[in-house]
């Protein structure tokens, strides 16, 4: 089948690609562009490991056809640090031990980033509920939540 021209802006870099319509955004990011920080977990939208931010919104990239992301601005885990400095959420995950095997971590961090960008003033219960689409197979939820709350607090006080 015919490949389609697709322009993606990923972490600020423009990528002009020719891709098959059946390729998911997740596959394009990982296999075509080579950004393997975004993980494929369940591949059915249930686990959140593939979460990236598209035009400011967290989405499960395994459910998105790459061709439909053309012209959109995408942020992946690789795009969070700037000038060698980790994003406060990344730093908080390290400080609290908010990861074990690390496979779910990029998805959790991207989902958390979108939440904190939208409103860092959420309660613990609200963050817990809003992160319900991300699964940690090591069940490190307590530390993950600590990380998100710590980062939200930092972002609240510095902004």
């Amino acid at each position: 089948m015919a490949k389609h021209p697709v322009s993606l802006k990923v972490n600020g870099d423009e990528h002009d690609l020719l891709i098959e319509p059946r390729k998911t955004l997740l596959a394009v990011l990982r296999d075509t562009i080579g950004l393997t920080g975004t993980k494929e977990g369940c591949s059915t939208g249930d686990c959140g490991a593939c979460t990236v931010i598209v035009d400011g919104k967290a989405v499960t990239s395994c459910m998105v056809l790459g061709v439909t992301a053309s012209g959109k601005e995408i942020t992946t885990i690789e795009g969070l640090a700037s000038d060698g400095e980790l994003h406060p959420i990344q730093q908080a995950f390290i400080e609290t031990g908010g990861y074990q095997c690390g496979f779910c971590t990029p998805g959790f961090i991207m989902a958390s980033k979108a939440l904190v960008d939208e409103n860092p003033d959420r309660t613990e219960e609200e963050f817990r509920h809003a992160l319900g689409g991300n699964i940690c197979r090591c069940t490190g939820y307590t530390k993950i939540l600590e990380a998100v709350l710590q980062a939200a607090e930092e972002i609240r006080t510095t902004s």
Partner: protein
Amino acid sequence: MKSFEFFEPTTLAEASRLFAQEHAQLLAGGTDIVIGMKAYTETPESVISLQKIPGLAGITTDADNGITIGATTKIREVELSEDILQHHTALAEGASEIGSIQIRNLATIGGNIAHASPAADTVAGLLVADAQVGIAGANGERTVPINELFTGPGQTVLKPGEIITQFRLPTPASGSHYIKHKIREVMDLAFIGVASAVNLQNGVIKEARIGLAAVAPTPIRATEAENLLKGKTPTPDLLAQAGEAAAAATSPISDLRCSAEHRKEMVDVLTRRTLQHALDRAGN
């Protein structure tokens, strides 16, 4: 995933023409179709994206026609819309029950309805809003009331090439509420879904609407229960009668999620609860 031709029409007429071809599927949010294609339960030869058609997304409100929700409006937008929260609370609550935030940022209200799952979380809220479904096809546009849209699980009255374009919600309710009976807080499918909406006048129920999901081959209105309530002053006994009448209107199945008996019993319980909550919201 099987290969397919991908189309991004910029007009409804073109989308409708392409969708009328054999083995064609529409793509709105993609949260059902992309997963279906990965599982090979969907093997379309052409996929027609609705994304580039102007005017299909967004929520508008005007004094004469009430609220109009474009078919490709994201579920997350429906959930957070101030106008919908205020006038059709049950619909906003239903939207907030779908999947995760990541999924609600992709999924559309048109997709949730066109998929025609009896368990769709926005359907009970649309039923009690008396939503009018705008449909475009080769022969122009038509309108179908939401309670006449579904003909069976996954089946609607839509003809080949017809596309849902919008939901019009002309009559605001003074109070409404949706309860999804489920196990998990998020990322769960409804055992059943119940929505109630009421309009009160001087403490008397002027109008009541009850929408039920996952308790029959299609989503249904509990019209006998609604008629019982009309013109009456709400009492616990009246709500109990309505609950029983709503349960009597159902024909649930037993499946891996729960038994038919449990579903029927919970329709009774949740009809009472949603009515009480809707009445409280209406200022009773």
